[in-house]
């Protein structure tokens, strides 16, 4: 069965008729062609598919597309609409936060939502906030460094 939905994605109104069983992640990737959102485990463990729904980070593989009807969704594509990196993205770039890049959108979206709520976060808080995202390349240190650098730069500006 399919369900007609209307939602806002990265500021634009989008409509679709996903199957009821289709996750928000697959809807974003397959129906809206927003393939910046990555799917790792598809059962809520790895965090790669994290997007922001109505201001809060959620796992788009654990939410049905039909459940996002009427919501405001932000994906990694919505962070730099003009092609210019934001403070967090630039800080992570400068810190060599990522290697292969598969987990990147999940970490960036989780950190984006977290820093909005906790702009002065310390290292321990950042580690806890990112503890639900898995990276198999970096050992995490460079990711934490990137988020800390973003906090520092935001404080100075």
């Amino acid at each position, binding site marked *: 069965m399919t369900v007609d939905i209307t939602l806002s994605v990265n500021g634009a109104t989008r409509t679709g008729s996903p199957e009821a069983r289709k996750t928000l992640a697959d809807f974003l990737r397959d129906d809206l062609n927003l393939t910046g959102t990555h799917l790792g485990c598809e*059962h809520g463990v790895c965090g790669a598919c994290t997007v922001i729904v109505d201001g809060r980070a959620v796992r788009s593989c*654990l939410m049905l597309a*039909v459940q996002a009807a009427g919501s405001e969704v932000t994906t990694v594509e919505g962070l730099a609409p003009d092609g210019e990196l934001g403070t967090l993205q630039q800080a992570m770039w400068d810190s060599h936060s990522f290697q292969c890049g598969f987990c990147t959108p999940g970490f960036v979206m989780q950190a984006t939502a977290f820093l909005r709520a906790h702009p002065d976060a310390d290292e321990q808080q950042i580690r806890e906030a990112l503890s*639900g995202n898995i990276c198999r390349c970096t050992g995490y240190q460079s990711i934490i460094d990137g988020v800390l650098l973003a906090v520092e730069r935001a404080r100075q500006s």
Partner: protein
Amino acid sequence: MKLPPVEYEAPTTVAEAVDLLAEHTDEASVLAGGQSLIPLLALRLAHPAVLIDINGIDELSGVSATNGWVAIGATTREYVAEESGTLADAVPLLAAALPLIGHEAIRNRGTIGGSLAHADPAAELPAVARALDAEFVVRGQSGERIIPAAGWFEGYLTTSRGPDELLVEVRFPAAGPGTGISFQEVARRHGDFAIVGLAASLTLTGGTISDARLAFAGMSDVPVRAGGAEDLLVGEAPSAELFDEAARRATDDMDPPADLHGSSDYRKKVAAALVRRGLRAAADNAYERQ
């Protein structure tokens, strides 16, 4: 994996949801926050023909305090409960357990009722509900029933909710003066399921323990109370020796499960350590609140 094909219903009132449950009973799964159910679907461990999504039922969400009880609507999201001042004041044990559930993104969708209806024995909320003797309010076509926590958890992922009933609310008793709490757990990483968890509550009246509550997560196929240890504690003054003896009594006749995270023996040792730690922390907390 992708989810299997499934029909989808989104009622907007409890009455509608109850009618749908009566129509589909065993064929239906109730979808709340989805943080446990969607993985079960993805892994083909659940095969419902119909999902009844209750997120659109406004009357099921909210936290309210009346007559010494705090009532939490079934679809109240865990982050909402975590941010509730009412809950932090009245049910501090629950407030202490909430931040330990999964990760932030999980708590942003996960619900209080969903976790308690899913009834994972290693999860935090079932242990808290069992420790505090929470009450579960379920509604079916024949009306409403109130089920005490002692009768709610029947087995691994199994509760006494009938297939045609909907969990609508969970009620927790408010902590009185002199009640101190602690939630302890050992997990591989922050946010992982506890290898062992402990919900502890002690009430001190004039330097003597007048009420003691200890409930374990991860030690059985349901959350379990340590009744023998509780009986030992009541009437005594807090001391390190007393807490050592309570830890022994709480764990001596336990036969916890073994898995790749820990053997049965290891779980018993961790549980005893958590009892000592939890009682010490709860007693300190009780002195502060006296």
